[in-house]
C-alpha cells in the first residue's frame, strides 16, 4: 500500500514498551545485560539508551545511530526476538534475563538466510541502515515465515536514504522462499 499520508503512528509501536519493568538502579551501579548470549556487566546510567551501551560499552558497532527517536530503525536489535529500536530503549527497561541480539549475533558466520539473500541480490548501497533492516526483517520472518508484500511493507518501516527498498523486499521474499524450500 503506497499511501503518502499513511498513519506513521505504527512506527512508534517499536519504541520502548511503556509497561516494561523499570529497574531502580542508582548511579555507578553495574547493570547486567545478556547480549548475543554473553552476560555483560555495564557501567552506565539507567536512562542510557541500549544503543549506546551496545556501541560504546560493549563495543559492537554494527548497530547504528541514525535519529535517536525511534524513527529510522538503524539501531534495530532483537529483545527476546522482538525487533526493537534500541536508541529509545533505556537499559533500565531491560532485565538481565532478556535476550538481546545484535547484528553481530544474528548468525555465527553471516549465514542467516537473510544475509545470504542480501548478498545474492547485492542489496546494500552505502550500507549504513542495512544491519537494522536485516534485524527488522529477521524478526518479521521469525513471526511470519511467508510474508506477503503487504506484510513486508507493513513491518519494514526502517529508513534507507539510498533507496534500496525494492531489493530489500525481494531479498526478504528470496530468504522466505529458501526457508520453505
Amino acid at each position, binding site marked *: *500500500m*503506497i*499511501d*503518502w*499520508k*499513511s498513519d*506513521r503512528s505504527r512506527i512508534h509501536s517499536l519504541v520502548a514498551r511503556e509497561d516494561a519493568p523499570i529497574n531502580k538502579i542508582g*548511579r555507578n551501579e553495574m547493570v547486567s545485560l545478556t547480549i548475543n548470549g554473553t552476560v555483560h556487566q555495564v557501567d*552506565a*546510567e539507567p536512562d*542510557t*539508551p541500549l544503543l*549506546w551501551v551496545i556501541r*560504546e560499552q560493549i*563495543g*559492537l*558497532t*554494527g*548497530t*547504528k*545511530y*541514525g*535519529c*535517536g*527517536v525511534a*524513527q*529510522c530503525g538503524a539501531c534495530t536489535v532483537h529483545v527476546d526476538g522482538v525487533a526493537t529500536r534500541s536508541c529509545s530503549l533505556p537499559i533500565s527497561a531491560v532485565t538481565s534475563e532478556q535476550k538481546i541480539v545484535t*547484528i*553481530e549475533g*544474528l*548468525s555465527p558466520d*553471516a549465514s542467516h538466510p537473510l*544475509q545470504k539473500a*542480501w*548478498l545474492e541480490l*547485492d542489496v*546494500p*548501497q*552505502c*550500507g*549504513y*541502515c*542495512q*544491519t537494522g533492516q536485516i534485524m527488522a526483517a529477521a524478526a518479521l520472518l521469525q513471526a511470519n515465515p511467508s510474508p506477503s508484500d503487504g506484510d*513486508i*511493507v*507493513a513491518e*519494514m*518501516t*526502517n*529508513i*534507507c*536514504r*539510498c*533507496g*534500496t*527498498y*525494492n*531489493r530489500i*523486499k525481494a531479498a526478504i521474499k528470496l530468504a522466505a522462499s529458501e526457508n520453505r524450500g
Partner: protein
Amino acid sequence: MTAALDVSRRSFLVGSAAAAGGLALGFNIPFTREALAQSAPEINAWVMVRPDETVVVRIGRVEMGQGTLTGLAQLVAEELECDWAKVTTEYPTPGQNVARSRVWGNFQTAGSRGVRDSHDYMRKGGAAARQMLIQAAANEWGVPAGECTVAKGVITHSPSGRTTSYGKVAEAASKLEAPKDVQLKDPKDWTIAGKPVKRLDTAEKLNGSQIYSIDVKRPGMLNAAIKACPVFGGKLKSFDAAQAQGMPGVKKVVAVGDNAVAVVADTWWRAKTALDALPIEWDEGPNAALSSEGIDRMLKEGLTAEQAFVGNQAGDVKAAIAGAAKKVEAEYGFPYQHHATMEPMNATALWTNEKCEVWTATQNAEAALATAVAASGLPIEKCDVYRQNLGGGFGRRATSHDYVRQAVLIAKEMPGTPVKLIWSREEDMLHGHYHPITQAKMVGALDADGNLTGLHMRISGQSILAGVNPQGLQNGRDPATFQGLNPSGTEGVLGYTIPNLLIDHAMRNPPIPPGFWRGVNNNQNALYLECFMDELAQAAGKDPLEFRRKLLVNHPKHLAVLNAVAEKAGWGTPAPQGVYRGLAQHMGYGSYVAACAEVSVGDNGVLKIHRIVAATDCGHAVNPQQIAAQIEGSFAYGLTALLYGEITLKDGKVEQENFDSYQMMRMDEMPAVESIVMPSGDFWGGVGEPTIFVAAPAVLNAIFAATGKRIRSGPLTKADLRKA
C-alpha cells in the same frame, strides 16, 4: 597545496617501505600514514599485487553507496587482465596524494563524476601495469614480451608453454619504468567491465563488520557532542561549564570556534547528556528574524526583476510572447532540502604539536585535509586524513567539512588524546548545507497550430556557488544554476529546440548555507521545465509525448530515452483502471534520462505511485546492475523530496529537527521501478544523480492526468490532491 611536500615517487616509496610493517590493508581498516606504506609491490599508483595474487586497486574517488569503488576496480581489472575474484580496493590518503604530486588525481566524488571523469586514467593505469607485469615475466625468461600473453593474472610464453603469475613477477615489475603509451581495449571486448558483477563491498555490510566513520575506535579515545548556534550567522555568547563538569564521564567543556560549544566525555551518550544540561547563551546575530515567509518575498521579487543573468537565449522571446496566439503562464517553486545522510556528521581527530590526524567520512579527502590543516595550525606535511566508509554522502560531505574543523579544534584542546565528535541528528538537521531554494516564472507562447514559438523561464533564487565558492562565479553569474538548460556542451544540454528562448536567473541569496544536494540544480530545473511542458501540451491540445517529440528532433539521445520509457510503459495504450501516466526527460552530468510514472489518486486524495519506467543512456555502462540500483534509489531520493522534503525557517532557525518532522519515503511508498539501461556507446555519463531529475516531474505530470490539478511546488504533504 602541492609545494610543501614535493617528494619524488621513488624516494617516498623507499621512505615509507622502510616503515612498513607488512600489514595487510583492507580499504575499510583505519590506517595511519606509516601503515599505508606498501605491503605489496606497487606496480603503479593504481595497482599493487601481493605474492598471494591479490590485486589491490587504489582509488582516489570515494564509495558512498553509488558503486564507484566496484565500477572503477572493474575498469582497472579489465585492462590489467587479472582475476576479478582476487581484486580488492584501498584508499590512498590525501596526504599521500599531495606527497606524490596528486598521482591519484582529484579525490572529489560529486557531480556523478566517479567513473565518468576517472575512467581514462584508471584504465590506462591498469593497462600500464599489465604491460609491466608481462615485461617482468619476459625479462625473467629472456624472451620478447610480444611472445607472452596473459589471462586472469597468469602469464604464458606461448612458444615454450612456460607460465608464471602476477604475484610471482610483481616485485620485478615494480622496478620497471612505466610504459609511455598504452593501448586501451575496445569496450566491445570487455569481459569484466560492462558486466553486472556483484559489488566488492557487500559482505561486510551484512554482519556489522563494516567500519563507518562513526565506528572508529582509537586507543584512549574520548567522545564529544556539540551544539552550534541554531541561528545561521549567530555566535556563542556564554556557557556555564560548571553545570556539566560534574556530570558522569565528563572530561572537558570547550568553546569551539566562535559559534559552538562541545562537551568531551568518556562516552558520547554522557557527552550529549551533559551538553543537554549545559546552559548556553547565544548571540543570534543579524538573522534572528529570518523566516520562510521573508525568503519567499525575496524570491517573488526576483521573478519579475529587471536584471537577471542569462543562461540560454535564442531569437526574440518578448516579441514571440507578445505575438502569441495563446500565452501560458505558471509559477513554480522548489523548497530547501536537507541531505539527511543516515550517518550524521562526525570525525575523529588526534592533535599534538607534531601532527594532526583525522579519521572521517568525506567525499573529498583533499578538502577535508585542507580544513584539518587550517584548523590544526600545523603545516600540511604534518597532517593527514584517513578516509572511512560513508553512511551516505549526497553532497553533504563534498564541500563543507565543518565537522572536521570542529573535531580538530576540540582535539587541540586535548593534545595527545583522540576525540571523536558526533553530531546528534538534531545538530545535523539544524546545520546542514541545504539544497538551495528557487522559484520559476514560466511563460510560453503558442501559435495558432499549437506550436511552441517562445519560452521565457525566469529562475529566481539561491546560487550554490555564491555560498560555497564565490570565486567560481563568472562576473557574478553562477553557471551551475542553468544545469540541464544549457545551449551546448556535454554536461547538461536543453533538449528542446525553441525558436525564441530566454532562460535567466535573478540571483537572490538568503543567508542560509547552500550546498550541492544529489542532483543539484537539475532537480528543480527539470521539475519546472518538464511540468511546464505538460502545461503547454495541454494548452496546445496535444499529447504530452507527441508535443515533446516534435521539440526534441534535434537531440536524438534525449528523444531516445523518452521513446524508450513511453514504449515500455505503454504510453498511448490504456493504463489499468484508475491509473494515470506522466512523462519527463532531462539531461545532466553527461547522461540522458527519462521516466514514465503511473499513479492513482483516491477520492480521499491519497496518492499511490504504482510503477515507474526509467531509462538511462550513460554512454558506457560499466556495471548495469549497479546502474539499475542507482536508478531505483534515485526515485526514493527524488520522490522523498517531492512528497515530504521542505526545510522551513522561523526566527532564523531551521524548524525540522529529526525524522519525525522531516519525513522520508519508506518501503510502503516505494513504487515498482523498471529500469532501461541503454548505453549508446560514444561518451561517458554519470549515473549517481541523473534519474533524480525526472522522478518528481514524471509523478507530478501523472498526478495532473489523474486529478486535473497542477501541483507546482512541493512537498505534496501540503497539497490537496482530491479531484478538482
